């Protein structure tokens, strides 16, 4: 039983082949890392899985249901959630309201109910607020509940994105370079958060360009290079793979 299956997926942008004929599967309950040098096509792949780009060819399945080319908000309904490499924070809203937006699909969002402020709306909001505060505390944002998001430091915003994604109670959480720009201590804390999330039963796809960061926490690693699969397997297998060492670790130095 696989959670996500990618079959023969390719995409090109004006002659540039960003992803070429890629196949892989993701099993439920694992931390699955996608790594590769800058420009390998990792974010492009994530954008295809989450519906921002439609692949030129190939198909993607979630729980064996084809999801190729479906729009992002539909995919959210099916249990996909993600964070963004270039932060996508609603800067004028409070941190808690950012996370509450992540809760959107679980709330009464009927316009008439909201206009009249029916009890179901207020009750739902109250419960959601409680759950979102818990989530923020679990990612270490307990001190920022009412902070305006735009005024928060960079490291906290990285966690805020994770909390917002978790608020949707996703089956599959895709994290795009959650540790980029963080120092060693902060990276370690983010790693702990990711492991905690995975233990709670959410399948995690982790995109990173620094291989060392993912070795310790990943169950499975996919290595991309120039839009193709370079290697795949357990961290040990990938580390021992000569192609990876040559093309990737060697280049990084």
């Amino acid at each position, binding site marked *: 039983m696989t959670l996500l299956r990618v079959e023969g997926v390719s995409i090109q942008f004006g002659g540039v082949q960003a992803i070429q004929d890629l196949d892989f599967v993701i099993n439920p309950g694992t931390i699955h890392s996608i790594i590769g040098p800058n420009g390998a096509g990792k974010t492009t792949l994530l954008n295809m899985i989450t519906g921002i780009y439609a692949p030129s060819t190939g198909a993607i399945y979630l729980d064996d249901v084809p999801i190729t080319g479906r729009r992002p908000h539909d995919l959210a309904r099916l249990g996909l959630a*993600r964070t*963004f490499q270039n932060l996508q924070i*609603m800067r004028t*809203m409070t941190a808690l309201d950012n996370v509450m*937006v992540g809760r*959107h699909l679980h709330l009464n969002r009927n*316009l008439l109910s909201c206009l009249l402020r029916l009890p179901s709306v207020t009750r739902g909001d109250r419960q959601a607020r*409680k759950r979102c505060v818990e989530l923020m505390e679990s990612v270490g944002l307990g001190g920022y509940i009412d902070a305006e998001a735009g005024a928060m*430091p960079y490291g906290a915003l990285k966690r805020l994105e994770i909390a917002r994604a978790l608020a949707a109670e996703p089956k599959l959480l895709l994290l795009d370079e959650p540790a980029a720009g963080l120092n060693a201590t902060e990276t370690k804390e983010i790693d702990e958060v990711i492991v905690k999330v995975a233990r709670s039963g959410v399948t995690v796809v982790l995109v990173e360009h620094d291989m060392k960061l993912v070795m310790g926490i990943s169950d499975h690693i996919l290595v991309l290079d120039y839009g193709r699969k370079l290697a795949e397997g357990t961290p040990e297998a990938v580390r021992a793979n000569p192609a990876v060492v040559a093309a990737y670790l060697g280049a990084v130095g």
Partner: protein
Amino acid sequence: MAHNVRPSGYSKFAKKQTYTRRMGTKKNRAQMLLSERGGGLSLLILVILVLPLFLANNYHYDVVVNIGINAIVVVGLNLLIGHAGQISLGHAGFFGLGAYVSAVLTARYGVHGLVALPVGALGVGILAYAIARPVLRLSGHYLAMATLGVGLIIHIVISREAWLTGGPDGMYVPPLEVMGVAVYGGPVWYWIVAGALILAVWLSLNVIDSPVGRALRGLNGSEVAAQAAGVDTTRYKVMVFVLSAVMAAVAGSLAAHFSEFVSPTKASFLQSILFVTMVVLGGMASTFGAVLGAVMLTLLPQVLADFADYEQVILGLIMMAVMIALPKGLVPTLTALVKRWVRRAGS
């Protein structure tokens, strides 16, 4: 894949102490009074109850009722511009259309005013829905152009189809009748419009503090992030566009019956601009800012009337000066000041 540069002065513990947790603790009384739902609505009702004591003549009532009518439009427009971040330079078109549907149906076809009003609202709602989907795919200045175009076309049609609308000269509108009694005169209309305004403000505050309101602000803050969270952003943009257009149409119907006259200036480009300016002047995303903006920009021409020919000169200067000095608008700037003061006094 560019890395984000970390802002300077970064410290992960720096802000932790300054924010207190709200969950489980009672809200500070000052905070309550500053909140829109708590203090704002009570203050509005209080002002509305007390204001008639200061209204001496028909002219006063006339001005105040027009303020209320404009405020209803602007409270709706604020949901679109202030919360969802979608500009419209054509809302006077919907306002005018609401006014003309009421005018034409009651004056020419003998339809009851209380039937014409919802018909106008529904008609404008359907029209707004039809144009919203293609128009709201546009962003920024393209959206400004498209909504401006929609407003101008409505204005031109109203001006040209004189057989139906009376053309540029406008047309007479019979007074509203309720149970066979004609409703006219400042004081009666004062309470009608006051009730409608309080309702509009209440509905608007409800939406703002609901999953729909957060979805609107969310798509304004980051459209991709909102989509990834499951918000069908197109649907919400269309929804708030239609809602604001319907509110404008209802206000238009009220305006037509109140002044017992309509003319195409109600649907003009300049009127659209005035509505938008009211939103921005009062403060984007602030419901009471919208009301205050309507108060100021409706009063201003009355005050400036004494300056006769210089009215436009002064209006233009004031618009520029306020926007340069307070780019965030009146209410957000003032509440920020008061909040800072309260915090300082409290610590």
